[in-house]
């Protein structure tokens, strides 16, 4: 587990975390890889793991009837994929597809959830790291919805779209 521990400690997501917690997390983790086109998980499946991408890009997709898969967002190196494992009903709400070769660290969700329940200090540390990820995705989605590059109606758009 030594190698994985060192690797986790280097990830921005875990930077500054107490080595005890990193050692524990390494115990729930393993290195995984996905080839381009391979799915990390599917919508509706049970969210039994989450991933920290080390290399490559993952597309979050949803299937729109008549259109096929539509990419909502792509996520790259050092980012976390998925938080559906944190809250009931623990089901993925999107498909996640590797756009290119993806190397990631996969964490067993039950292992981490259990620890969060047993040890609120650990749970707090994990949430303090995960909530900003969720917030930044929410902010990004809102910005995406604003359609800032569209031609703005009204005299004073003052934007260089």
């Amino acid at each position, binding site marked *: 587990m030594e190698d994985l521990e060192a690797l986790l400690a280097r990830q921005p997501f875990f930077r500054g975390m107490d080595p005890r917690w990193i050692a524990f997390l390494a115990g729930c983790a393993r290195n995984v890889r996905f080839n381009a086109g391979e799915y990390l998980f599917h919508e509706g499946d049970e969210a039994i793991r989450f991933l920290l991408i080390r290399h490559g890009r993952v*597309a979050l997709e949803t299937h729109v009837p008549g259109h096929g898969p539509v*990419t909502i967002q792509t996520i790259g190196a050092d980012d976390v994929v998925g938080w559906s494992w944190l809250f009931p009903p623990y089901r993925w709400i999107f498909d996640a597809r590797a756009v290119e070769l993806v190397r990631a660290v996969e964490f067993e969700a039950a292992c981490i959830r259990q620890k969060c329940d047993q040890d609120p200090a650990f749970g707090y540390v994990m949430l303090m790291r995960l909530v900003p990820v969720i917030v930044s995705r929410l902010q*990004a989605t809102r*910005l*995406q919805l604003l359609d*800032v590059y569209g031609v703005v109606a009204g005299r004073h758009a*003052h934007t260089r779209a």
Partner: protein
Amino acid sequence: MHTLGRDAMVPVPAVVRRVRRQTRDTCTVDLDSPRGQGFSFRPGQFNMVYVFGIGEVPISISGNPQRPVPISHTVRAVGAITTAIRGLRRGDVVGLRGPFGSSWPVEAAEGMDVLIVAGGVGLAPLRPAMLHVLANRERYGRVALLYGARTPHDLLFRRDLERWRGRFDLHVAVTVDAPVLGWNGGVGVVTALIQSAPVDFAECVAWVCGPEVMMRFAVAELLRLRVAAERITLSMERNMKCAVGLCGHCQYGPYLLCREGPVFRYPDVQRWLTIKEV
């Protein structure tokens, strides 16, 4: 610097050499230098382009500062004048004044990492800065270009992007808000790309241009990553009339954008950036 004509208020006639379509609503117009006279500009500066009988608009110069002629402008058709510019043909004549305004601090950035963040047509005024950095590549540290557009169809300067992506001494990341079928690139807002740009945030300069909302979010993200506020530079837009600091049309807080801008250090415009319709 070579400016056009003697009187900054009088447009000089310039002949259209070529109009290149960029996207469905954007084109690049190449103009011959008026009467064959010299022309030079600093990256980030703009010209006033006058379509006879219709009107005059400020447009950034999008060409190569090392080879400033023909004089290139990349224009998105949003209203009467820009639509008329898009309709220009080879041999047509427009009126030209310029170059005006402040520029990206390309010399001050020497020795540092450079992070360029562009949204939509905001890539146009950043292209000369990028070309300057590439022409003097050894004078800069790591260089990253992050570019966001609405859809893959709205990406400007595709040939440049492809060429730049092929370089080993450059990081180029492109993202779109809404993909189309077959798009295999990034999806999401350009600000989400900032944190994984391979530059030293503590030691880099960041040049940002795009819609104001996008610039606000980009600045917030840069500050979160500990980029020093005074190393963040933005290009702002306001409607202009005279472009020489006389009419007050382009007022932005205490500044006249045509004279002190359009390129500003973030701390200088920080107060006004979050106020709606300054």
